[in-house]
């Protein structure tokens, strides 16, 4: 027993020492689950290419904002942009500005579990708000039937699924509902965490997708990649021009068309409920939250290298993983922003 314990301790010790001896550059980041599918691919590919390891923990946008403010990570990620107050707080605690660098665009799709209804369920803003407000509680409600003629809608309770953690995906979704439903704006509002009138809470995009997948009659909002990867049907949403649009990289890119011409200087912008008849109305940018002035300059250098890679080669991975690449004008603005990160 004694020799076994000693052997074990020596093994642990050697691993610790060995790892320190061969220390590669390791950076830690945390935040949004929305882009986790593509970020995990990016970091995996990039680490093989460059040897620099970016350890990203998807704990939700709220977590990303928090940890960036507290300085416990090297970078954060969020699809709900930080508010001015939050930026002030971060600057106060970390002594430097936090930059929002958009990386990709994605869509919040409304996934559902209703085998009887099949694919391509249609939803209008009013019905969507009604469901998530807890006002429409059964799938065979006349309001749903009215916009889905010919669909088989069974007598089943609607099980609403939303995020239990602070989420940029929630931010995009509630930002949209806030614009299209006065009742929603009056009673709930928008944010990374809101007071949900109905439904079950799941942690992360995975949690919500999990609930939808496992519960008959469930409906929830998730990033497109999560719905596709799990064979979850998702609804067509009626946009501002009245067209029922499916979320694809084309319709998401169309949603950003207007905004990309008029990006604000700090790159924080919402693209929900835009004009354009091809636009998918619940789309959004997702940002990496980067310190402008990091104390550890070697880390800053690696981050800048990665960001430049993400703006170029990284964008080629978007379509296969069901995200939309950044429009050209936005990439140019990003590169300008990246140049303001202090690396020496």
């Amino acid at each position, binding site marked *: 027993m004694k020799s076994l314990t000693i052997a*074990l301790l020596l093994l642990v010790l050697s691993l610790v020492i060995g790892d320190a001896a061969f*220390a590669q550059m390791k950076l830690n980041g945390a935040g949004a689950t929305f882009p986790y599918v593509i970020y995990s691919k990016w970091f995996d590919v990039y680490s093989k290419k460059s040897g620099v390891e970016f350890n990203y923990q998807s704990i939700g946008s709220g977590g990303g904002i928090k940890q960036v403010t507290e300085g416990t990570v090297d970078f954060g990620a969020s699809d709900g942009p930080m508010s001015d107050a939050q930026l002030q707080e971060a600057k106060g605690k970390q002594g430097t500005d936090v930059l929002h660098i958009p990386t990709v665009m994605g869509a919040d799709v409304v996934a559902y579990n209703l085998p009887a209804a099949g694919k391509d369920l249609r939803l209008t803003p009013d019905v969507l708000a009604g469901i998530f407000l807890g006002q429409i509680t059964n799938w065979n409600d006349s309001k749903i039937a009215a916009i889905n003629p010919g669909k088989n809608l069974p007598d089943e309770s609607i099980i609403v699924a939303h995020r239990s953690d602070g989420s940029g995906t929630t931010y995009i979704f509630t930002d949209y509902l806030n614009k299209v439903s006065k009742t929603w704006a009056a009673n709930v509002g928008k944010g990374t965490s809101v007071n949900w009138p109905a439904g079950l809470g799941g942690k992360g995009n995975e949690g919500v997708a999990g609930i939808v997948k496992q519960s008959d009659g469930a409906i929830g909002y998730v990033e497109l990649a999560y719905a596709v990867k799990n064979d979850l049907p998702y609804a067509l949403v009626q946009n501002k021009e009245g067209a029922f649009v499916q979320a694809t990289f084309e319709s998401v890119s169309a949603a950003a068309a207007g905004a990309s011409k008029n990006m604000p200087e700090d790159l924080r912008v919402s693209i929900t409920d835009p004009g354009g008849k091809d636009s998918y109305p619940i789309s959004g940018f997702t940002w990496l939250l980067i310190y402008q002035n990091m104390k550890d300059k070697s880390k800053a250098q690696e981050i800048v290298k990665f960001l430049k890679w993400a703006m170029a080669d990284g964008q080629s991975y978007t379509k296969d993983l069901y995200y939309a690449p950044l429009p050209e004008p936005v990439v140019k603005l990003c590169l300008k922003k990246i140049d303001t990160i202090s690396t020496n």
Partner: protein
Amino acid sequence: MKQGFSTYHYWRKSKSAFTTFLCFLSALIAIVPLFLIFFYSLSQGIGALNLDFFIKMPKPVGESGGGMANAIVGTAILIGLGTIFGLPISLFTGIYLAEHKHSAFASVVRFLTDVLSGIPSIVVGVVAYIIVVLPMKHFSALAGGVALGILMIPTATRTTEEMLLLVPQSIREAGLALGIARWKVTLRVILPTALRGITTGILLALARAAGETAPLLFTALGNRFWSTEIGQPIASLSVFIYDYAKAPFSDWNRQAWAAAFVLIFFITILNVIFRFVTRGRYAGNGH
């Protein structure tokens, strides 16, 4: 007159038989979940338990395959750190309690140790976050180790105390009679005698720590890469199970079951060993 039993007597007898049966049934029902969980995780996990699971790293989200090599090592490092923090305190406190059975302070300490064992692990995680992560400005295996160490203290202390108390007084008296200093008697004679029981008890505490998830969520955080540095976030089996279980990817679900099976297996083996080692020691203790 025929000598016989009254109806009331039979009523009492059957009531007794019935309640005996109920108790037997309760025992059966109580064990059912155990077998359900055990065999369910076995059946679900065995498919995913291949060599890849033990030696490969996790793949990007949505891709199938890969393994939990970093999590296995991570859990090992975390419980190693927990031992480093928790063991000295547990050992010495256990010795103190065994030496000073009747002192008032010892009773208070014993009482507080029991109270400590009831504190939820999430609360310990919050404290570890406040006292390690915030000052360090970093999530780290160290913070996770501190949390696990605190969680190990109550069990390890009590086991040490109980095992030491089992050593017959005659051995202590023999040592003292030979003129050996008191502290030497404790350290060189009594402790080694009780060592086997103590070690197994500590291994048991370790096994429990290995299954802890809540305190690690905001101390060690997690790591998709191979990392063994204690100042960095680190992967662990329990957090991986949590992440993979609520995910919709069925490949991940499978891997979660495999990890659960590994944990259950590890814990069961240690429990069996503990039982085996302490069996003889408990002779005559009315257990």
